[in-house]
Every structure is written in structure tokens, then in C-alpha cells.
């Protein structure tokens, strides 16, 4: 009996749980996800004919260069704004009691859980010319502002969804900060503000940095918010890509835009990897293709 089981084992192991369970799923993802994605990239050098003409267009056409620059600007601005708004929120959360912390986590995660379309539509209602915000402004006797169709509107909508990706890494770093250290600075005569800026802020920077990198990567992929809250004349990469393919049928230049987008995201990931390695941080799972 015993000899039989021992003999049977190696034969089974040749396939093993990896071969039986993982390989089929990997093959499905390869065929249904990786191959279509790679085909897009290949088309950038094969359509309309073999060559680099699409990349020449990408780097010399004024519209394409504008789109790329605008994408970086928007992602940078969104990251900066998210960091500035998330920091005090994360600080209060990290130093609050467990109940308060749970409530604040729930609040910051709500936009992430609520429907993309519902959330974006709600912003239209609020920001449109005769919307909630302008009605409130004029009832207070203040001048109304045109927000819908501007980059400000896009940022308002984007930063709202990006908050959890910034707040959560910040909180995890802030919680590990020993509060006796800034306190020590104060007992040595530093004013609270100075103790904060010279001691606490530098210690919390790893959290800010890892949050910022995730937020930057996610900012590059926004489609719905810029399409509905922004102006069609101020397209960013994902919108230009959609336009080139679905409306203009330009697979070549669309492919080149896809390469540019993927390249940027890839570089940002390399940066994330290097920074997390250098700082010895551990990042949680990043989820959010829905942006």
C-alpha cells in the first residue's frame, strides 16, 4: 500500500496543482487579454503601412504633443491636489480612536464603491452653469462661475475617487510613527508647527510618496471624468485614443497613443518598484481599473 502511494506521487506531480489549476486560467488571460492588448501596440507600426510614421506623428503633430503634455499636467496636478487634501485627513485618521478611524475609512472609500457614471453625472448637476453650486453662489449674491467643461471640474471629479489611494498608504505610515518623537522636539523647545514640519512631515513622507505614485498611475488612465466634465478640446491620452479608434478608425495613430500611454504607466510602475524597494515599503493591492 505505502509503496504504491509513493510510486503514484511523482507521476501526479508532473502535472501538479499548478499545471491543472493555474495554467488553464493563465492561457485564457493570455488569449483574451494579453494578445488583444499586444495587437494594439503592434498596429502602431503596421498601420497603415509598416514603419514608424505613427510615432513620427505622435512626436511632431501639435495635437498629439499637446495631448501628451496635457495628460502629464493633469495627472501631476491631480496627484498634488490629492496629496494636499489627503494629508490632513490621513493625519486625523491616523491619530483618531478606532471608531472614528473606521468611520473615516468608510467615508473615504465611498466614492470608490459608488458607480462611476452616477458619480460623474452628479458632478454635472452640481457644476453646470445653472447647477447646484452656481444657484448657491447667486443666492448669496456672489458671481457665478463656469466650471463644467474646464480642467477644474475634471480635477474635482478625479480627486474625489483618488482619495482612498492616497489616504490609505499615508495612514499606514503615519500609524507607525512614534508620536513621542515630535513630542520630544517640542520639549526641546520647538514650537508645535516647527516640530511638525521638521520631524513629523519628513517621517510621513514615504506614505505620501507611495500614495502619490499610485495616484499618478491611476490619473493617467481616467476616461469617463475628462470626457463628461472636461472639454472635448482638452482631451487627454485615453480620450484621444478612444476618439482615434472608435470615431476616426485611425488604428495606426491610435496604436501609437496606446504605446505612449502604456509606456508612461510602465515607467511609473518601475518608479514605484524602485521607490518602494529603496524605502522598504510594502504596498497593498492596487485596484481601480474603473476610473
Amino acid at each position, binding site marked *: 500500500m505505502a509503496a504504491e502511494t509513493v510510486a503514484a506521487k511523482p507521476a501526479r506531480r508532473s502535472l501538479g496543482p*499548478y499545471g491543472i489549476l493555474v495554467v*488553464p486560467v493563465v492561457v485564457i488571460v493570455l488569449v483574451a487579454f494579453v494578445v488583444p492588448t499586444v495587437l494594439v501596440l503592434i498596429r502602431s507600426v503596421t498601420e497603415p503601412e509598416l514603419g514608424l510614421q505613427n510615432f513620427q506623428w505622435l512626436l511632431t503633430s501639435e495635437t498629439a504633443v499637446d495631448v501628451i503634455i496635457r495628460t502629464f499636467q493633469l495627472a501631476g496636478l491631480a496627484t498634488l491636489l490629492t496629496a494636499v487634501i489627503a494629508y*490632513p485627513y490621513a493625519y486625523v485618521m491616523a*491619530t483618531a480612536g478606532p471608531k472614528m478611524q473606521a468611520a473615516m475609512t468608510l467615508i473615504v472609500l465611498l466614492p470608490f464603491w459608488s458607480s462611476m457614471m452616477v458619480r460623474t*453625472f452628479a458632478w454635472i448637476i*452640481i457644476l453646470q452653469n445653472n*447647477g447646484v453650486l452656481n444657484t448657491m453662489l447667486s443666492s448669496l449674491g456672489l458671481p457665478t462661475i463656469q466650471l463644467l467643461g474646464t480642467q477644474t471640474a475634471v480635477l474635482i471629479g478625479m480627486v474625489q475617487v483618488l482619495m482612498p489611494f492616497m489616504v490609505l498608504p499615508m495612514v499606514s505610515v503615519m500609524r507607525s510613527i512614534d508620536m513621542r518623537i515630535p513630542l520630544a522636539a517640542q520639549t526641546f523647545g520647538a514650537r508645535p508647527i516647527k516640530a511638525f514640519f521638521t520631524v513629523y512631515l519628513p517621517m510621513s513622507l514615504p506614505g505620501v510618496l507611495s500614495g502619490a505614485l499610485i495616484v499618478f498611475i491611476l490619473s493617467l488612465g481616467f476616461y469617463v471624468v475628462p470626457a463628461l466634465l472636461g472639454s472635448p478640446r482638452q482631451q487627454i491620452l485615453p480620450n484621444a485614443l478612444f476618439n482615434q479608434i472608435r470615431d476616426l478608425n485611425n488604428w495606426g495613430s491610435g496604436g501609437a497613443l496606446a504605446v505612449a*500611454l502604456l509606456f508612461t504607466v510602465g515607467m511609473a510602475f518601475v518608479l514605484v518598484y524602485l521607490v518602494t524597494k529603496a524605502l522598504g515599503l510594502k504596498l497593498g493591492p492596487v485596484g481601480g481599473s474603473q476610473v
Partner: protein
Amino acid sequence: MTKNRPKIKKSRLFLYLLCVPIAFWLVAPTLVVIPLSFTPQRSFAFPPPGFSLEWYENFFTSPQWLGGLLNSLQIALLVASISSILGTLAAYGLSKTSGFRKTLSNGLLVSPILIPAVIFGVGVYAVFLRTGLVGTMAGFVLAHTMLALPFVVVNVGAVLVAYDTQLERAAWVSGAGRIRAFMTVTLPVIWPGVASGFLFAFITSFDEVIVSAFISSPALQTLPVRMFTSVQREVDPTIAAAATLIIILTTAIALTAIFTRKKRKV
């Protein structure tokens, strides 16, 4: 904790006051769609000048709106079921694998949430154009499953890390086959991970706009795509009714998730 806080009380109060508008901005805006869905006029003016159920009636009698909702529900249920099964099998297999194979397969399985959806949208649109899958149920389910699978792999994987494999070994030693041991011993233990993976997958599919916008046709579109085109082309408060229904649905799902989790702890 409280004793060690270096900040004086006044600055603490200031910080709390700073957090209130942030919290408001995170939570409140979405709720404006609810009163708007009862507006009596064809406009997005707010506050609505009266009350009417016209847009709900419109929603439930329009084949485009109701059809969109039914398509979305059907696709999301299929996607959640398929990706729960595939993702659980893959995560279980990965938990028994190590080294380079594991890193590579894991990276590959999670890649759909890391790569901007618009790129996959273009790719899947190109392939579907050739294979005739644009505007088909099968096409939607296939594309959404790719986007939902990573969430199941991550959620189930997280539970499997804490899973004591001795339990399963005990079942094998006691004579249960591998499949039976998995079904009767492992699966009940990792069930919370599978359930949250299922929820993530459902929401991912139900809420998807970008890839769906590429592969939908006038004959078959999902509710988010219908909403997207509606916002771009017309002023139709039916979208507010649709949005309110989505809020009710997702709140119900979230409450169910919280309730079952609480129950499990007891």
C-alpha cells in the same frame, strides 16, 4: 495614544473642522441625483421645481433603459460567477506554487487592473470586430471577466495565505480525494474570500464603461454605456432615475456584505 499627542487641543479642533468639508465632498455630491430623479421637467435644473414619477415610468417602459439594466445585471452575474470559479481555482493553484512560476503567473493574472482599461478596450474591439463578438452577450462576458478576474485572485489569495493546509492534509490522510477535500474542507474555510471576490467582480462588471463603450452596439448595450451616451447627447432626467436605482442596488449589496460579515464574526 491620547497622552502622546503633541498637538494642542485647539489645533486638533482646527484639523477636525478641516476634515468635515472633505468628508462632505466625498459623500454628499452623489446624492443630488436622488431628488433630481423626481423632477417634473425635462431639465437638470436643481432643486427640481415639483414632483413627478415620469422618469421612473420612462425608465421602466423604455427598452433602451430597462433593457440596459437587464443586460448589465445578466452580464455582471455571469461575469461574477465565471470569474469566481476561475479566480478561485487559479488562486488555489498559485498557493501551492512557488518561485518564478508563481511570480510570473500572479503578475499576469493581476495585469488587467494595472493596465489602463482603454488600451484593453481598443484591443478587444479590434479582435471582436474580426470575430463578430461586438454587441454580443458572450463578448461582454468575456471582456468583463478579464477585468474582474484579478479581484477574485487577489481576494481569494489573501484568504489562502492565512489558510492552514494541515486541515486539507488531514482530509487527504483520512482518505478523501483531492477534489473532495477541496470541496468539503478548503472551500468552506476560504469562502469569505470567494464571496468578496464575487462582489468585487459583480461591481466591476456592472459599473464598467470604457471597454463596454467600445464593444457595445445599438442592439446590445449596458446601463452605464446607455447613461454615458445619454449624458453626451441629450438632456433626459431618466438618467437620474437610473442613477437612483443604481444607488439603491449598490447600497443593498454593500449592506448585505456588511451584514453577512458581522454574522460570520459571531
